[in-house]
Protein backbone atom coordinates (compact mmCIF):
# COMPACT_ATOMS: atom_id res chain seq x y z
CA UNK A 1 0.00 0.00 0.00
CA UNK A 2 1.19 3.49 -0.73
CA UNK A 3 0.40 6.14 1.77
CA UNK A 4 1.92 9.06 3.54
CA UNK A 5 5.48 8.42 4.65
CA UNK A 6 5.65 7.81 8.38
CA UNK A 7 6.49 11.00 10.21
CA UNK A 8 9.87 11.06 11.95
CA UNK A 9 9.92 12.47 15.47
CA UNK A 10 13.20 14.11 16.46
CA UNK A 11 14.81 13.31 19.79
CA UNK A 12 14.56 16.20 22.22
CA UNK A 13 11.70 17.87 20.34
CA UNK A 14 8.32 18.00 22.06
CA UNK A 15 5.20 16.57 20.47
CA UNK A 16 1.69 16.18 21.83
CA UNK A 17 0.80 12.49 22.07
CA UNK A 18 -2.62 13.16 20.60
CA UNK A 19 -1.15 14.69 17.44
CA UNK A 20 1.15 11.72 17.04
CA UNK A 21 -1.78 9.41 17.66
CA UNK A 22 -3.92 11.00 14.93
CA UNK A 23 -1.08 11.00 12.43
CA UNK A 24 -0.13 7.38 13.16
CA UNK A 25 -3.76 6.32 12.97
CA UNK A 26 -3.92 7.77 9.47
CA UNK A 27 -0.72 5.95 8.55
CA UNK A 28 -2.22 2.69 9.78
CA UNK A 29 -5.41 3.33 7.81
CA UNK A 30 -3.37 3.90 4.67
CA UNK A 31 -1.11 0.90 5.24
CA UNK A 32 -3.61 -1.68 6.43
CA UNK A 33 -6.95 -2.08 4.62
CA UNK A 34 -8.42 -3.80 7.69
CA UNK A 35 -8.15 -0.72 9.91
CA UNK A 36 -11.28 1.31 10.62
CA UNK A 37 -11.73 4.09 13.17
CA UNK A 38 -14.71 4.47 15.51
CA UNK A 39 -15.04 7.75 17.37
CA UNK A 40 -17.13 8.70 20.39
CA UNK A 41 -17.67 12.32 19.33
CA UNK A 42 -14.26 13.49 20.50
CA UNK A 43 -12.39 13.37 17.19
CA UNK A 44 -11.16 16.95 17.39
CA UNK A 45 -9.84 16.42 20.92
CA UNK A 46 -8.26 13.02 20.36
CA UNK A 47 -7.11 13.98 16.84
CA UNK A 48 -8.81 11.02 15.19
CA UNK A 49 -10.30 13.80 13.04
CA UNK A 50 -7.10 13.55 11.01
CA UNK A 51 -8.52 10.26 9.70
CA UNK A 52 -12.04 11.68 9.43
CA UNK A 53 -10.79 14.39 7.09
CA UNK A 54 -8.32 12.37 5.01
CA UNK A 55 -10.19 9.06 4.84
CA UNK A 56 -13.88 9.57 5.66
CA UNK A 57 -14.58 6.13 4.19
CA UNK A 58 -12.64 4.57 7.06
CA UNK A 59 -14.04 6.74 9.85
CA UNK A 60 -17.29 5.85 11.62
CA UNK A 61 -18.87 8.37 13.95
CA UNK A 62 -20.50 6.46 16.81
CA UNK A 63 -21.81 9.46 18.71
CA UNK A 64 -21.83 9.85 22.47
CA UNK A 65 -22.54 6.19 23.14
CA UNK A 66 -19.40 4.33 24.15
CA UNK A 67 -21.11 1.08 25.13
CA UNK A 68 -22.48 0.73 21.65
CA UNK A 69 -19.15 1.76 20.14
CA UNK A 70 -17.38 -1.13 21.88
CA UNK A 71 -20.04 -3.57 20.69
CA UNK A 72 -19.96 -2.27 17.12
CA UNK A 73 -16.19 -2.69 17.15
CA UNK A 74 -16.59 -6.29 18.32
CA UNK A 75 -19.02 -7.02 15.51
CA UNK A 76 -16.69 -5.47 12.93
CA UNK A 77 -13.75 -7.44 14.31
CA UNK A 78 -15.59 -10.71 13.68
CA UNK A 79 -15.45 -9.82 9.96
CA UNK A 80 -11.66 -9.48 10.01
CA UNK A 81 -11.57 -5.71 10.36
CA UNK A 82 -9.36 -4.00 12.94
CA UNK A 83 -11.49 -1.33 14.62
CA UNK A 84 -9.75 1.35 16.66
CA UNK A 85 -12.16 2.76 19.27
CA UNK A 86 -11.14 6.28 20.17
CA UNK A 87 -12.30 8.28 23.17
CA UNK A 88 -10.96 9.65 26.42
CA UNK A 89 -9.41 7.13 28.79
CA UNK A 90 -12.07 7.90 31.38
CA UNK A 91 -14.84 6.75 29.02
CA UNK A 92 -12.98 3.87 27.33
CA UNK A 93 -12.01 2.31 30.63
CA UNK A 94 -15.23 2.97 32.54
CA UNK A 95 -18.35 3.73 30.54
CA UNK A 96 -18.10 0.59 28.37
CA UNK A 97 -16.28 -1.64 30.81
CA UNK A 98 -18.81 -4.50 30.72
CA UNK A 99 -18.85 -4.36 26.93
CA UNK A 100 -15.07 -4.63 26.85
CA UNK A 101 -15.33 -7.60 29.19
CA UNK A 102 -18.05 -9.55 27.41
CA UNK A 103 -17.73 -8.85 23.69
CA UNK A 104 -14.09 -7.78 23.39
CA UNK A 105 -11.88 -9.44 26.01
CA UNK A 106 -13.78 -12.69 26.57
CA UNK A 107 -13.93 -13.59 22.86
CA UNK A 108 -10.46 -11.99 22.45
CA UNK A 109 -11.61 -10.01 19.45
CA UNK A 110 -9.17 -7.87 17.53
CA UNK A 111 -10.31 -4.50 18.85
CA UNK A 112 -7.91 -1.66 19.67
CA UNK A 113 -8.78 0.86 22.36
CA UNK A 114 -7.20 4.29 22.38
CA UNK A 115 -7.73 6.21 25.61
CA UNK A 116 -6.68 9.82 25.21
CA UNK A 117 -6.38 12.38 28.01
CA UNK A 118 -5.37 9.79 30.59
CA UNK A 119 -4.17 10.69 34.07
CA UNK A 120 -4.39 14.12 35.66
CA UNK A 121 -3.35 16.30 32.73
CA UNK A 122 -6.60 16.69 30.80
CA UNK A 123 -6.68 20.38 30.00
CA UNK A 124 -8.31 21.54 33.21
CA UNK A 125 -11.42 19.41 32.74
CA UNK A 126 -11.31 18.04 36.25
CA UNK A 127 -12.00 14.77 38.03
CA UNK A 128 -14.82 13.53 35.76
CA UNK A 129 -12.41 13.51 32.83
CA UNK A 130 -9.26 12.45 34.67
CA UNK A 131 -8.89 8.70 34.68
CA UNK A 132 -6.53 7.81 37.49
CA UNK A 133 -7.43 4.10 37.57
CA UNK A 134 -7.63 2.93 33.94
CA UNK A 135 -4.43 0.89 34.13
CA UNK A 136 -5.71 -0.91 37.24
CA UNK A 137 -9.12 -1.53 35.71
CA UNK A 138 -7.96 -2.86 32.38
CA UNK A 139 -4.89 -4.65 33.72
CA UNK A 140 -7.21 -6.80 35.84
CA UNK A 141 -9.19 -7.85 32.78
CA UNK A 142 -8.07 -11.20 31.31
CA UNK A 143 -6.90 -11.11 27.67
CA UNK A 144 -6.35 -7.34 27.76
CA UNK A 145 -2.96 -5.81 26.94
CA UNK A 146 -2.20 -2.42 28.51
CA UNK A 147 0.38 -0.06 26.99
CA UNK A 148 1.32 3.45 28.17
CA UNK A 149 3.87 5.02 25.80
CA UNK A 150 6.27 7.73 26.97
CA UNK A 151 6.88 9.88 23.92
CA UNK A 152 6.09 10.49 20.26
CA UNK A 153 8.37 7.77 18.94
CA UNK A 154 6.92 5.24 21.32
CA UNK A 155 3.29 6.24 20.66
CA UNK A 156 3.79 5.56 16.95
CA UNK A 157 5.71 2.33 17.55
CA UNK A 158 3.25 1.07 20.17
CA UNK A 159 0.30 1.74 17.90
CA UNK A 160 1.94 -0.24 15.10
CA UNK A 161 2.68 -3.10 17.48
CA UNK A 162 -0.88 -2.98 18.82
CA UNK A 163 -2.25 -3.09 15.30
CA UNK A 164 -0.05 -6.05 14.42
CA UNK A 165 -1.11 -7.97 17.55
CA UNK A 166 -4.17 -10.18 17.12
CA UNK A 167 -6.31 -9.39 20.15
CA UNK A 168 -7.54 -6.55 22.36
CA UNK A 169 -5.04 -3.83 23.26
CA UNK A 170 -5.54 -0.69 25.32
CA UNK A 171 -3.21 2.20 24.46
CA UNK A 172 -3.08 4.82 27.19
CA UNK A 173 -2.37 8.26 25.78
CA UNK A 174 -1.94 11.76 27.14
CA UNK A 175 -3.07 15.11 25.86
CA UNK A 176 -0.16 17.50 25.98
CA UNK A 177 3.35 17.92 24.62
CA UNK A 178 6.30 16.09 26.08
CA UNK A 179 9.91 15.77 24.91
CA UNK A 180 11.01 12.88 22.75
CA UNK A 181 13.47 10.55 24.50
CA UNK A 182 13.69 7.69 22.02
CA UNK A 183 15.68 7.84 18.81
CA UNK A 184 14.47 6.85 15.35
CA UNK A 185 16.03 3.39 15.75
CA UNK A 186 13.99 2.57 18.88
CA UNK A 187 12.32 -0.82 18.63
CA UNK A 188 9.13 -1.26 20.64
CA UNK A 189 7.97 -4.73 21.57
CA UNK A 190 4.78 -5.54 23.49
CA UNK A 191 5.76 -6.88 26.90
CA UNK A 192 9.33 -5.57 26.87
CA UNK A 193 10.62 -2.98 29.32
CA UNK A 194 13.54 -0.78 28.35
CA UNK A 195 16.39 0.66 30.40
CA UNK A 196 16.52 4.38 29.65
CA UNK A 197 19.29 5.26 32.11
CA UNK A 198 21.89 3.20 33.89
CA UNK A 199 22.78 3.59 37.54
CA UNK A 200 23.72 1.52 40.58
CA UNK A 201 22.24 3.21 43.65
CA UNK A 202 18.46 3.22 43.21
CA UNK A 203 16.06 1.90 40.55
CA UNK A 204 13.18 3.99 39.24
CA UNK A 205 10.52 2.03 37.36
CA UNK A 206 8.01 4.17 35.51
CA UNK A 207 5.45 4.11 32.72
CA UNK A 208 3.90 6.53 30.25
CA UNK A 209 4.93 10.17 30.23
CA UNK A 210 5.94 9.84 33.89
CA UNK A 211 9.15 8.30 32.56
CA UNK A 212 10.11 11.76 31.29
CA UNK A 213 9.74 13.04 34.85
CA UNK A 214 11.62 10.00 36.19
CA UNK A 215 14.56 10.91 33.97
CA UNK A 216 14.46 14.47 35.29
CA UNK A 217 14.44 13.02 38.80
CA UNK A 218 17.52 10.99 37.89
CA UNK A 219 19.23 14.25 36.90
CA UNK A 220 18.38 15.75 40.30
CA UNK A 221 19.76 12.68 42.05
CA UNK A 222 22.90 12.66 39.91
CA UNK A 223 23.65 16.18 41.12
CA UNK A 224 23.79 14.68 44.62
CA UNK A 225 25.98 11.81 43.53
CA UNK A 226 23.17 9.25 43.51
CA UNK A 227 23.11 7.02 40.43
CA UNK A 228 19.54 6.22 39.40
CA UNK A 229 18.79 3.27 37.17
CA UNK A 230 15.60 4.01 35.19
CA UNK A 231 13.52 1.20 33.73
CA UNK A 232 10.72 2.35 31.45
CA UNK A 233 7.75 -0.05 31.35
CA UNK A 234 5.49 0.84 28.43
CA UNK A 235 3.60 -2.45 28.62
CA UNK A 236 2.08 -2.65 32.07
CA UNK A 237 0.46 -5.93 31.07
CA UNK A 238 1.95 -8.34 30.25
CA UNK A 239 4.64 -7.01 32.59
CA UNK A 240 8.28 -7.69 31.75
CA UNK A 241 8.84 -9.42 35.09
CA UNK A 242 12.41 -10.48 34.31
CA UNK A 243 13.42 -6.90 33.55
CA UNK A 244 11.63 -5.61 36.66
CA UNK A 245 13.32 -8.18 38.91
CA UNK A 246 16.73 -7.57 37.34
CA UNK A 247 16.40 -3.80 37.68
CA UNK A 248 15.40 -4.19 41.33
CA UNK A 249 18.26 -6.55 42.09
CA UNK A 250 20.76 -4.25 40.43
CA UNK A 251 20.37 -1.57 43.15
CA UNK A 252 18.32 -3.24 45.88
CA UNK A 253 16.00 -0.23 46.13
CA UNK A 254 13.02 0.60 43.96
CA UNK A 255 10.80 3.63 43.33
CA UNK A 256 7.85 3.32 40.96
CA UNK A 257 6.35 6.37 39.27
CA UNK A 258 3.11 6.80 37.33
CA UNK A 259 0.39 9.35 36.59
CA UNK A 260 -2.18 6.94 38.03
CA UNK A 261 -3.33 5.71 41.42
CA UNK A 262 -0.74 3.65 43.27
CA UNK A 263 -3.50 1.07 43.82
CA UNK A 264 -3.54 -1.46 41.02
CA UNK A 265 -1.31 0.42 38.61
CA UNK A 266 2.33 0.05 37.68
CA UNK A 267 3.51 0.40 41.28
CA UNK A 268 1.18 -2.38 42.35
CA UNK A 269 2.24 -4.56 39.43
CA UNK A 270 5.90 -4.07 40.33
CA UNK A 271 5.19 -4.77 44.02
CA UNK A 272 3.34 -7.97 43.13
CA UNK A 273 6.23 -9.09 40.96
CA UNK A 274 8.99 -8.21 43.38
CA UNK A 275 7.07 -9.72 46.28
CA UNK A 276 7.26 -13.06 44.50
CA UNK A 277 10.54 -12.85 42.62
CA UNK A 278 12.84 -10.42 44.40
CA UNK A 279 11.55 -8.73 47.57
CA UNK A 280 13.04 -5.25 47.56
CA UNK A 281 12.43 -2.13 49.66
CA UNK A 282 10.30 0.16 47.52
CA UNK A 283 8.23 3.33 47.40
CA UNK A 284 5.39 4.11 45.01
CA UNK A 285 5.01 7.57 43.53
CA UNK A 286 1.55 8.11 42.14
CA UNK A 287 -1.90 9.39 43.00
CA UNK A 288 -2.71 8.35 46.54
CA UNK A 289 -6.25 6.98 46.48
CA UNK A 290 -7.93 10.21 45.52
CA UNK A 291 -9.54 11.88 42.53
CA UNK A 292 -8.12 14.91 40.78
CA UNK A 293 -9.47 18.37 40.04
CA UNK A 294 -9.39 21.17 37.45
CA UNK A 295 -6.10 23.03 37.43
CA UNK A 296 -3.05 23.82 35.27
CA UNK A 297 -0.77 20.85 34.66
CA UNK A 298 2.17 22.02 36.76
CA UNK A 299 -0.05 22.73 39.74
CA UNK A 300 -1.68 19.31 39.47
CA UNK A 301 1.68 17.55 39.30
CA UNK A 302 2.81 19.49 42.36
CA UNK A 303 -0.31 18.95 44.45
CA UNK A 304 -0.64 15.25 43.65
CA UNK A 305 3.05 14.54 44.07
CA UNK A 306 4.14 13.58 40.55
CA UNK A 307 6.94 16.08 39.85
CA UNK A 308 10.56 15.02 39.32
CA UNK A 309 11.26 16.44 42.77
CA UNK A 310 8.70 14.07 44.30
CA UNK A 311 10.23 11.10 42.50
CA UNK A 312 13.72 12.09 43.64
CA UNK A 313 12.52 12.51 47.22
CA UNK A 314 11.00 9.03 47.15
CA UNK A 315 14.37 7.72 45.94
CA UNK A 316 16.21 9.37 48.84
CA UNK A 317 13.62 8.00 51.25
CA UNK A 318 13.93 4.44 50.03
CA UNK A 319 17.70 4.74 50.19
CA UNK A 320 17.49 5.80 53.85
CA UNK A 321 14.77 3.31 54.74
CA UNK A 322 16.46 0.55 52.78
CA UNK A 323 19.51 0.91 54.98
CA UNK A 324 17.35 0.69 58.12
CA UNK A 325 15.33 -2.26 56.83
CA UNK A 326 18.47 -4.11 55.87
CA UNK A 327 19.94 -3.35 59.26
CA UNK A 328 16.84 -4.71 60.97
CA UNK A 329 16.90 -7.82 58.81
CA UNK A 330 20.58 -8.44 59.60
CA UNK A 331 19.74 -8.29 63.29
CA UNK A 332 17.17 -10.98 62.72
CA UNK A 333 14.20 -8.80 63.50
CA UNK A 334 11.16 -8.11 61.34
Amino acid at each position, binding site marked *: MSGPAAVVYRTGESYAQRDVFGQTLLELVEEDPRVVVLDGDLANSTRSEIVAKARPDRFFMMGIAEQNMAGVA*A*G*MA*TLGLIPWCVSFACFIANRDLDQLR*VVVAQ*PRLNVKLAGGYSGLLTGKSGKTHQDVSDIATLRAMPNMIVIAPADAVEVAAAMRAANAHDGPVYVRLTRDASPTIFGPDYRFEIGRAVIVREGNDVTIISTGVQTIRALEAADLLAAEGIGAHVLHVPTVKPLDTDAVAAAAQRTGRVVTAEDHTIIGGLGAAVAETLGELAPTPMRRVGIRDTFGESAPNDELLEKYGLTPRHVAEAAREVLRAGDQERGAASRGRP
Partner: protein
Amino acid sequence: MTATDLGEARLRELRQLAIENRRLILRAIHRAKAGHLGGPLSCTDMLIALYFEVLRIDPTRPRWEERDRFVLSKGHSSIALYAAMALRGYLPIDELFTFDAIDSRLQGHPDMTALPGLDMSTGSLGQGLSPGVGMALGARFLGKDFRTWVMVGDGDAQEGQIWEAAMVASRYDLDNLTAILDLNGLQQVGWPTEAGYTARARRPPLDQPRERWEAFGWQVLECDGHEIGAFIGACEEARRIRGRPGVIIAHTVKGKGISFMEGEHVWHAKPITDEELAIGLAELDAQEATLAEAVPG
Protein backbone atom coordinates in the same frame (compact mmCIF):
# COMPACT_ATOMS: atom_id res chain seq x y z
CA MET B 1 -43.21 -15.22 1.13
CA THR B 2 -46.28 -16.02 3.17
CA ALA B 3 -47.16 -19.10 5.13
CA THR B 4 -49.11 -20.53 2.23
CA ASP B 5 -46.18 -20.09 -0.14
CA LEU B 6 -44.08 -22.28 2.12
CA GLY B 7 -46.50 -25.18 1.90
CA GLU B 8 -48.43 -26.96 4.65
CA ALA B 9 -46.15 -30.01 4.60
CA ARG B 10 -43.03 -27.94 5.26
CA LEU B 11 -44.79 -25.94 7.95
CA ARG B 12 -45.78 -29.19 9.65
CA GLU B 13 -42.14 -30.30 9.55
CA LEU B 14 -41.08 -27.06 11.17
CA ARG B 15 -43.76 -27.35 13.86
CA GLN B 16 -42.59 -30.90 14.49
CA LEU B 17 -39.00 -29.62 14.83
CA ALA B 18 -40.18 -26.96 17.29
CA ILE B 19 -41.81 -29.65 19.43
CA GLU B 20 -38.57 -31.64 19.33
CA ASN B 21 -36.63 -28.48 20.24
CA ARG B 22 -38.83 -28.01 23.32
CA ARG B 23 -38.31 -31.65 24.27
CA LEU B 24 -34.53 -31.21 24.06
CA ILE B 25 -34.68 -27.98 26.10
CA LEU B 26 -36.64 -29.69 28.89
CA ARG B 27 -34.37 -32.74 28.93
CA ALA B 28 -31.14 -30.71 28.85
CA ILE B 29 -32.24 -28.38 31.65
CA HIS B 30 -33.44 -31.37 33.68
CA ARG B 31 -30.05 -33.02 33.21
CA ALA B 32 -28.10 -29.86 34.04
CA LYS B 33 -30.29 -29.21 37.12
CA ALA B 34 -30.00 -25.50 36.26
CA GLY B 35 -30.79 -23.08 33.49
CA HIS B 36 -33.52 -21.06 31.90
CA LEU B 37 -36.81 -22.37 30.54
CA GLY B 38 -39.34 -19.58 30.02
CA GLY B 39 -37.27 -17.55 27.54
CA PRO B 40 -35.96 -20.51 25.56
CA LEU B 41 -39.52 -21.79 25.13
CA SER B 42 -40.78 -18.38 24.00
CA CYS B 43 -38.21 -18.08 21.20
CA THR B 44 -38.11 -21.73 20.08
CA ASP B 45 -40.52 -21.45 17.15
CA MET B 46 -38.61 -18.48 15.79
CA LEU B 47 -35.22 -20.17 16.17
CA ILE B 48 -36.48 -23.20 14.26
CA ALA B 49 -37.82 -20.93 11.53
CA LEU B 50 -34.55 -19.02 11.39
CA TYR B 51 -32.22 -22.03 11.34
CA PHE B 52 -34.34 -24.14 8.95
CA GLU B 53 -35.82 -21.52 6.59
CA VAL B 54 -34.67 -17.96 7.02
CA LEU B 55 -30.92 -17.76 7.60
CA ARG B 56 -28.48 -18.19 4.73
CA ILE B 57 -26.25 -20.70 6.50
CA ASP B 58 -24.39 -23.95 5.97
CA PRO B 59 -23.94 -26.08 9.10
CA THR B 60 -20.94 -27.82 7.52
CA ARG B 61 -19.21 -24.45 7.13
CA PRO B 62 -19.91 -22.52 10.34
CA ARG B 63 -17.25 -19.92 9.43
CA TRP B 64 -18.45 -19.41 5.83
CA GLU B 65 -17.79 -15.72 5.21
CA GLU B 66 -20.98 -15.12 3.23
CA ARG B 67 -23.31 -16.61 5.86
CA ASP B 68 -26.05 -14.59 7.47
CA ARG B 69 -25.07 -13.61 11.00
CA PHE B 70 -27.27 -14.36 13.99
CA VAL B 71 -26.79 -12.87 17.45
CA LEU B 72 -28.84 -13.98 20.43
CA SER B 73 -28.81 -10.83 22.54
CA LYS B 74 -31.01 -12.56 25.14
CA GLY B 75 -28.12 -14.95 25.75
CA HIS B 76 -29.78 -16.71 28.66
CA SER B 77 -31.97 -18.49 26.10
CA SER B 78 -28.84 -20.29 24.90
CA ILE B 79 -30.23 -23.81 25.33
CA ALA B 80 -32.96 -23.10 22.76
CA LEU B 81 -30.30 -21.91 20.31
CA TYR B 82 -28.05 -24.91 20.98
CA ALA B 83 -30.97 -27.28 20.45
CA ALA B 84 -31.93 -25.63 17.16
CA MET B 85 -28.31 -25.72 16.02
CA ALA B 86 -28.06 -29.39 17.01
CA LEU B 87 -31.22 -30.25 15.07
CA ARG B 88 -29.80 -28.32 12.10
CA GLY B 89 -26.55 -30.30 12.27
CA TYR B 90 -24.05 -27.94 13.89
CA LEU B 91 -23.40 -30.30 16.78
CA PRO B 92 -24.42 -33.78 17.91
CA ILE B 93 -27.80 -33.94 19.66
CA ASP B 94 -26.20 -35.83 22.56
CA GLU B 95 -23.88 -32.91 23.19
CA LEU B 96 -26.89 -30.93 24.44
CA PHE B 97 -26.67 -32.97 27.62
CA THR B 98 -23.26 -31.50 28.38
CA PHE B 99 -24.96 -28.08 28.80
CA ASP B 100 -23.43 -26.18 31.74
CA ALA B 101 -20.94 -29.00 32.45
CA ILE B 102 -17.23 -28.36 32.90
CA ASP B 103 -15.33 -28.08 29.60
CA SER B 104 -18.57 -28.14 27.59
CA ARG B 105 -18.82 -26.14 24.39
CA LEU B 106 -22.34 -25.32 25.53
CA GLN B 107 -21.77 -22.67 28.13
CA GLY B 108 -24.61 -21.22 30.18
CA HIS B 109 -24.50 -18.21 27.90
CA PRO B 110 -23.28 -18.42 24.28
CA ASP B 111 -19.49 -18.41 23.99
CA MET B 112 -18.31 -17.90 20.42
CA THR B 113 -14.83 -19.10 21.33
CA ALA B 114 -16.25 -22.46 22.41
CA LEU B 115 -18.77 -23.41 19.73
CA PRO B 116 -18.30 -22.74 16.00
CA GLY B 117 -21.51 -21.33 14.55
CA LEU B 118 -22.03 -18.79 17.29
CA ASP B 119 -21.44 -15.39 15.73
CA MET B 120 -21.14 -13.48 19.01
CA SER B 121 -20.70 -14.10 22.71
CA THR B 122 -23.62 -12.77 24.68
CA GLY B 123 -25.16 -13.07 28.11
CA SER B 124 -24.74 -9.69 29.75
CA LEU B 125 -28.04 -8.21 28.65
CA GLY B 126 -28.41 -5.34 26.24
CA GLN B 127 -25.19 -6.13 24.39
CA GLY B 128 -26.26 -8.10 21.32
CA LEU B 129 -27.61 -5.41 19.03
CA SER B 130 -24.37 -3.38 18.95
CA PRO B 131 -22.23 -6.20 17.50
CA GLY B 132 -25.07 -6.75 15.03
CA VAL B 133 -24.74 -3.11 14.01
CA GLY B 134 -20.99 -3.67 13.64
CA MET B 135 -21.57 -6.73 11.45
CA ALA B 136 -24.07 -4.89 9.26
CA LEU B 137 -21.87 -1.80 8.99
CA GLY B 138 -18.84 -3.98 8.31
CA ALA B 139 -20.73 -5.97 5.65
CA ARG B 140 -21.58 -2.76 3.83
CA PHE B 141 -17.96 -1.55 4.15
CA LEU B 142 -16.65 -4.85 2.76
CA GLY B 143 -19.28 -5.05 0.01
CA LYS B 144 -20.83 -8.25 1.36
CA ASP B 145 -24.52 -9.04 0.95
CA PHE B 146 -25.20 -11.18 4.01
CA ARG B 147 -27.89 -10.11 6.47
CA THR B 148 -27.44 -9.76 10.22
CA TRP B 149 -30.24 -10.87 12.52
CA VAL B 150 -30.32 -10.05 16.22
CA MET B 151 -32.84 -11.51 18.63
CA VAL B 152 -33.54 -9.12 21.49
CA GLY B 153 -35.61 -9.85 24.58
CA ASP B 154 -38.10 -7.39 26.01
CA GLY B 155 -36.26 -7.45 29.33
CA ASP B 156 -32.98 -7.24 27.40
CA ALA B 157 -34.27 -4.02 25.81
CA GLN B 158 -34.41 -2.31 29.22
CA GLU B 159 -30.64 -1.86 28.91
CA GLY B 160 -29.79 1.56 27.49
CA GLN B 161 -27.22 0.12 25.11
CA ILE B 162 -29.98 -1.41 22.97
CA TRP B 163 -31.22 2.10 22.28
CA GLU B 164 -27.73 3.43 21.62
CA ALA B 165 -27.42 0.70 19.01
CA ALA B 166 -30.89 1.39 17.64
CA MET B 167 -29.99 5.05 17.19
CA VAL B 168 -26.73 4.32 15.40
CA ALA B 169 -28.31 1.63 13.18
CA SER B 170 -30.82 4.11 11.82
CA ARG B 171 -28.17 6.85 11.50
CA TYR B 172 -26.40 4.51 9.07
CA ASP B 173 -29.64 3.36 7.37
CA LEU B 174 -28.68 -0.26 8.01
CA ASP B 175 -31.27 -2.09 5.93
CA ASN B 176 -29.09 -5.22 6.07
CA LEU B 177 -29.89 -5.53 9.78
CA THR B 178 -33.03 -7.09 11.25
CA ALA B 179 -33.85 -7.16 14.93
CA ILE B 180 -36.36 -9.65 16.30
CA LEU B 181 -38.00 -8.64 19.57
CA ASP B 182 -39.13 -11.68 21.55
CA LEU B 183 -41.95 -9.88 23.34
CA ASN B 184 -42.83 -12.51 25.89
CA GLY B 185 -44.02 -9.99 28.43
CA LEU B 186 -42.08 -11.18 31.46
CA GLN B 187 -38.67 -10.83 33.03
CA GLN B 188 -36.96 -12.44 36.01
CA VAL B 189 -38.67 -10.31 38.65
CA GLY B 190 -40.26 -7.34 36.94
CA TRP B 191 -42.40 -4.53 38.23
CA PRO B 192 -45.49 -5.24 40.33
CA THR B 193 -48.95 -4.26 39.26
CA GLU B 194 -51.15 -2.19 41.54
CA ALA B 195 -51.97 -5.44 43.32
CA GLY B 196 -48.31 -5.83 44.23
CA TYR B 197 -46.01 -8.81 43.84
CA THR B 198 -48.39 -11.29 45.37
CA ALA B 199 -50.43 -11.57 42.19
CA ARG B 200 -49.28 -13.48 39.12
CA ALA B 201 -49.48 -10.41 37.00
CA ARG B 202 -46.53 -8.18 36.24
CA ARG B 203 -46.16 -4.96 34.33
CA PRO B 204 -44.72 -5.75 30.89
CA PRO B 205 -40.94 -5.28 30.59
CA LEU B 206 -41.30 -2.83 27.71
CA ASP B 207 -44.21 -0.45 27.22
CA GLN B 208 -45.16 0.66 23.71
CA PRO B 209 -42.52 -1.30 21.81
CA ARG B 210 -43.78 -0.26 18.38
CA GLU B 211 -43.66 3.44 19.21
CA ARG B 212 -40.20 3.09 20.71
CA TRP B 213 -38.65 1.40 17.68
CA GLU B 214 -40.42 3.72 15.26
CA ALA B 215 -39.17 6.74 17.20
CA PHE B 216 -35.64 5.42 16.74
CA GLY B 217 -36.11 5.28 12.98
CA TRP B 218 -36.80 1.58 12.52
CA GLN B 219 -39.47 0.04 10.33
CA VAL B 220 -41.67 -2.10 12.53
CA LEU B 221 -43.31 -5.40 11.60
CA GLU B 222 -45.40 -7.42 14.01
CA CYS B 223 -46.39 -11.05 14.12
CA ASP B 224 -47.23 -13.97 16.40
CA GLY B 225 -43.84 -15.43 17.30
CA HIS B 226 -45.32 -18.91 17.62
CA GLU B 227 -46.95 -18.95 14.17
CA ILE B 228 -43.98 -20.19 12.21
CA GLY B 229 -45.50 -19.32 8.83
CA ALA B 230 -46.35 -15.79 9.89
CA PHE B 231 -42.91 -15.29 11.37
CA ILE B 232 -41.17 -16.49 8.21
CA GLY B 233 -43.40 -14.14 6.23
CA ALA B 234 -42.31 -11.26 8.48
CA CYS B 235 -38.65 -12.18 7.97
CA GLU B 236 -39.11 -12.12 4.21
CA GLU B 237 -40.81 -8.76 4.48
CA ALA B 238 -37.93 -7.53 6.63
CA ARG B 239 -35.49 -8.50 3.86
CA ARG B 240 -37.33 -6.16 1.50
CA ILE B 241 -37.08 -3.07 3.73
CA ARG B 242 -34.86 -0.44 2.13
CA GLY B 243 -33.13 2.56 3.62
CA ARG B 244 -33.52 1.74 7.29
CA PRO B 245 -33.25 -1.13 9.73
CA GLY B 246 -36.26 -3.29 10.48
CA VAL B 247 -37.53 -4.92 13.64
CA ILE B 248 -40.00 -7.76 13.92
CA ILE B 249 -41.97 -7.44 17.12
CA ALA B 250 -42.86 -11.05 17.80
CA HIS B 251 -45.66 -11.54 20.30
CA THR B 252 -44.83 -14.61 22.33
CA VAL B 253 -45.69 -16.41 25.54
CA LYS B 254 -42.98 -17.09 28.05
CA GLY B 255 -42.81 -20.82 28.73
CA LYS B 256 -44.77 -21.53 25.53
CA GLY B 257 -45.80 -25.14 24.99
CA ILE B 258 -45.70 -26.36 28.58
CA SER B 259 -49.00 -25.53 30.26
CA PHE B 260 -47.72 -24.96 33.76
CA MET B 261 -44.85 -22.75 32.57
CA GLU B 262 -46.79 -20.49 30.23
CA GLY B 263 -46.95 -16.94 31.52
CA GLU B 264 -45.42 -17.93 34.85
CA HIS B 265 -42.46 -15.73 35.66
CA VAL B 266 -41.10 -18.24 38.18
CA TRP B 267 -40.13 -20.44 35.23
CA HIS B 268 -37.70 -17.81 33.97
CA ALA B 269 -34.92 -19.95 35.43
CA LYS B 270 -35.67 -22.93 37.61
CA PRO B 271 -34.55 -26.56 37.70
CA ILE B 272 -37.21 -29.00 36.58
CA THR B 273 -38.11 -32.04 38.70
CA ASP B 274 -38.53 -35.59 37.38
CA GLU B 275 -42.32 -35.26 37.70
CA GLU B 276 -42.43 -31.91 35.95
CA LEU B 277 -40.26 -33.28 33.16
CA ALA B 278 -42.61 -36.23 32.70
CA ILE B 279 -45.66 -33.96 32.54
CA GLY B 280 -43.94 -31.58 30.12
CA LEU B 281 -42.80 -34.38 27.81
CA ALA B 282 -46.30 -35.88 27.86
CA GLU B 283 -47.74 -32.54 26.82
CA LEU B 284 -45.27 -32.32 23.95
CA ASP B 285 -46.15 -35.90 22.90
CA ALA B 286 -49.81 -34.89 22.82
CA GLN B 287 -48.99 -31.83 20.70
CA GLU B 288 -47.08 -34.08 18.32
CA ALA B 289 -50.02 -36.47 18.06
CA THR B 290 -52.38 -33.59 17.29
CA LEU B 291 -50.00 -32.34 14.63
CA ALA B 292 -49.87 -35.82 13.05
CA GLU B 293 -53.67 -36.11 13.07
CA ALA B 294 -53.90 -32.84 11.19
CA VAL B 295 -52.17 -34.40 8.19
CA PRO B 296 -54.75 -34.41 5.41
CA GLY B 297 -55.66 -37.79 3.84
